[in-house]
């Protein structure tokens, strides 16, 4: 089965959120298909959680669309 590298997701997120003060992608199982994304960015300020997560989904549209991501956990924050 095809998997996606943790670094690929991190690169995509770094491009979409160049200002991120916190950005981590953890491969939760080591299998390259269950990930935890933690992201702090000023782009999230004033947005609802649904809108914040949509921005993350937009950034990861390609790996999400081709079915290589099985599970994606997201924790987003506006800048503290």
């Amino acid at each position: 089965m095809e998997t996606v590298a943790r670094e690929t997701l991190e690169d995509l997120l770094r491009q979409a959120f160049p200002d991120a003060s916190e950005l981590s992608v953890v491969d939760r199982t080591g299998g390259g298909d269950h990930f935890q994304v933690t992201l702090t960015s000023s782009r999230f300020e004033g947005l609802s959680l649904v809108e914040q997560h949509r921005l993350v989904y937009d950034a990861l549209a390609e790996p999400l669309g081709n079915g290589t991501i099985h599970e994606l956990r997201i924790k987003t924050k506006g800048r503290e």
Partner: protein
Amino acid sequence: MNELHERIKGIVENEPVALFMKGTPEFVMCGNSDRALRALRDAGAPVTAVNILPDPRIRQELSAVSGWPTIPQVFIGGELVGGADIVEELAASGELEQKLEEKLGPEYRSSRAERVDDVLTV
């Protein structure tokens, strides 16, 4: 628009709380669906569960309706609340119960029992 699309839209718009999940509340097939269901149950939400697994078209049409790519998806009073992470986060902060009260009224806990909607049966 096709019939399945309209049925899913109808569930989203008309059910007080709709949970699109993998499996059923009695036999949950995915950890995230389980997390969302537990958070909703703990908040006393009158959940209407829809299993998306029997037919891949259910998931396709659901994402076309909501614009949300992952499962589970939770709707309260027709509004997309989010997936498991958001529902858990809102539950922890007390905002989930607030939203349920705001959308469904203060008596929402006693309004109705949990049920399953088989979206494929006409």
